[in-house]
C-alpha cells in the first residue's frame, strides 16, 4: 500500500462521509424534537432511491425524477409523523421506539410489494470516465456526492442559523417546554423535523443509488450507519453530527481498504461499541447534563 492508495481511500471516505452526515443530521433533528430515535430513517433513503430509479426507467428525465423522489420521501416522512407518532406522542419511550420499528417494517414491506426484490439502478448524475488527479482515480459520481453534501450543509447552516423557522426548530430541539412558552408550536416543529429529516434522507437516496444499487432492504444498514455518525457527534448537536458522519466515512473506507472488505459493514458497528465504551457523550466536546 502506497500513499496514493491511501489518498484514494481517504477521498472516497470523505464523499461517503458526507452522505452519512446528512442522515445523521436527520436523526439528530428528529430525536431532539420528538424524543425518539427514528428507526425508519434508512427507509426514507430507500424510498427516494427506489422512486427515482423506477421513474427514470419509466422514461422521466433524471433530474426531474430526483426532485420528485426527494419530495415523495419528505411526504412519507410527514405522513409517518402525523399518522403513527402523533397519536402516541404522550406515551413512553419504549412505545414510540417500537412504533418507529413498526413504521420501518411497514415501509420495507410496501417497497417489496411495489418494487419487488430485484435491485434497481439509477444512472449517475455526472457521466464520463473517472478523473485522474495526481494518480488518484476518482469516479465522477463521487464529486457529485461530495458536492451535494457540501451544498446541503451550507443550506442547513443558513436554515438553522439565519431563518426564523430554523431558529424556532433549534429552540424546540433544545427545550420543548420552554419553546412552547415562547410561542413555538412543538407539534408543528415535530412535523417540520420529519419533513427535514426525510428530505435529507431522500437527497442521500438519490445520491447513493447510482453507486450502490437500490434494493428494498437497503435502508437498514444505511440507517444504522447514520445513527453511528450521530452518536459519534453526541446525538444533540448538528455540527457534531456532520463531523461524526465524515469521520465515520473515512474510518470505514480506511478500515475496508486496509483490513478486510468482507467485513466492511461490521466496522461501523465496531466504532459504535467503542464510542459507547470510551466516550458515550460523543467524541466532540458538548455540554453535558441530562434532561430528566
Amino acid at each position: 500500500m502506497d500513499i496514493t492508495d491511501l489518498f484514494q481511500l481517504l477521498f472516497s471516505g470523505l464523499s461517503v462521509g458526507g452522505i452519512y452526515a446528512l442522515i445523521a443530521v436527520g436523526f439528530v433533528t428528529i430525536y431532539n424534537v420528538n424524543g425518539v430515535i427514528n428507526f425508519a430513517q434508512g427507509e426514507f433513503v430507500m424510498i427516494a432511491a427506489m422512486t427515482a430509479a423506477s421513474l427514470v426507467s419509466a422514461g422521466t428525465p433524471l433530474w426531474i425524477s430526483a426532485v420528485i423522489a426527494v419530495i415523495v420521501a419528505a411526504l412519507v416522512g410527514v405522513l409517518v409523523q402525523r399518522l403513527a407518532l402523533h397519536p402516541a406522542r404522550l406515551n413512553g419511550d419504549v412505545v414510540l421506539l417500537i412504533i418507529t420499528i413498526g413504521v420501518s417494517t411497514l415501509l420495507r414491506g410496501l417497497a417489496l410489494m411495489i418494487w419487488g426484490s430485484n435491485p434497481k439502478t439509477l444512472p449517475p448524475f455526472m457521466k464520463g470516465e473517472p478523473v485522474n488527479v495526481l494518480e488518484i482515480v476518482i469516479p465522477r459520481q463521487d464529486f457529485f456526492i461530495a458536492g451535494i453534501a457540501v451544498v446541503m450543509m451550507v443550506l442547513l447552516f443558513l436554515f438553522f442559523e439565519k431563518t426564523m423557522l430554523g431558529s424556532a426548530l433549534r429552540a424546540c430541539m433544545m427545550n420543548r417546554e420552554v419553546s412552547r412558552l415562547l410561542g413555538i408550536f412543538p407539534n408543528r416543529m415535530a412535523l417540520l423535523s420529519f419533513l427535514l429529516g426525510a428530505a435529507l434522507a431522500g437527497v442521500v437516496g438519490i445520491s447513493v443509488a447510482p453507486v450502490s444499487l437500490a434494493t428494498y432492504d437497503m435502508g437498514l444498514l444505511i440507517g444504522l450507519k447514520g445513527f453511528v455518525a450521530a452518536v459519534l457527534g453526541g446525538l444533540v448537536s448538528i455540527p457534531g453530527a456532520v463531523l461524526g458522519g465524515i469521520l465515520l466515512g473515512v474510518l470505514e473506507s480506511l478500515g475496508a481498504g486496509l483490513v478486510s472488505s468482507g467485513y466492511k459493514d461490521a466496522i461501523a458497528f465496531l466504532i459504535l461499541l467503542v464510542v459507547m465504551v470510551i466516550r458515550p457523550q460523543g467524541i466532540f466536546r458538548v455540554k453535558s447534563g441530562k434532561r430528566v
Partner: protein
Amino acid sequence: MENRNEVKMLPNDLTITKRIGYSLFVMVFLLFAPLLLGSYFTGMFVLMGIYTIAAVGLTLLMGYAGLVSLAQASFWGIGSYVTGIATTHFEWNIWLSIMLAIIVSAVVAGILGFVTRNMEGHYFTLATLGFGIVLNIILVEEGDWTGGSSGMTGIPSLSFLEYSINSETAWFYLIWAVTILVLLLFRNLVHSNWGRNLRSIHSSSLASSAMGINTGRFRLQAFILSAVTGGLSGALYSSYMGFISPAVFNFEMSIKFVLMVVVGGLVSIWGAVIGVVVVMLLVEFLRDYLPLIFHHSSAAGAIEIIFFGLLLIIMMIYMPGGIVGAIENLRMKWRGEQ
C-alpha cells in the same frame, strides 16, 4: 418527556382456587392436545413452544427492564449454530451441546450488555440491531464452520439413553414441559425482589439509581437472561428441525419476536405465550388465504412484512398493554360496574 400513559404492570391477585383451576385446565389441554390436533398442528404447537421460550426472555427485557432488543433472533441463531457446530463438527452429545449453546449466548450477551449497560434505551436497541447484522455477516462469511448461506444439516434429535425423540407428539410433550418450566421460573423471578427492582428502573431509572439501585447491573442481568432463553430456544429449534440456515435468524425474525411480545402484552410474563400463539395463527391464516385474494403467492412474503409493521404500530397506538393488558382493562371495567 412525561410518560402519562405508561404501561401499568399487572398485580398478581388471582385467588388460589382460581390458580389451581387455570393450571388444571392448561394441564389437561396440553395432555390431550396432540390427540386432538393432528400431526400438522402438533408440529406447529412444538414451534410455538420453542418461540415462547425465546419470547419470555424478551418480555422480561422489554416489559420489565424497558429495553427493546432487536437481537433476539441473533441469540436464537447463536443457540442453533453452537448446537449445530458442537454436534456435527465435534460430535458432542446433544445435551452437552445445548448446555454449551446456553453458556455461549450468555457470554456474548454479557459482553454486549456490559458495553451498553448504562446507555439510554435507543442506544441499546441500535446496538442490538448492529450486532444482529454483524452476526449474520459472520454466519455467511465463516462458511467452513457454518456452511455459509446454505446452512447446516444433520443436527441430531434429542435422546434419552437409547430412546430418541422423533415423533411430533414426543416433541410436543418435551417442549411444552420445558416451556412451562421456563414460564414458571420467570414468573417467580418477576415477582421477586429482583423483579421489583427491575420494574422500578423501568418506571424511573433516575429515581431508582437515587434509591441506590445499580441500574446498569440489573439491565445487564435482564439482558443476559433474555439471551439465555434465546439460546435455549435456538438450541431446541436446531435439534427439532435438524437443519439451520442464516436466513432464519435475520432481522425479520427479530421483529417477529418483538411483535409476539407486543401483541401478547408487555405487562405480564404470560403475554409471551398468548402473543406467540396469536401471531403464529395469524401468520398461518395469512399464508393460507392471502394468495387466494391476490391470485399469486409471491406477494405473500411482502404482505406478511407489511402486516407485521402495521400490527406493531396499531398495537402500540391503541393497545400498548397488548392482549393481556386489554383483558385486564375489561375485567376492571366489568368489576367497576358491578
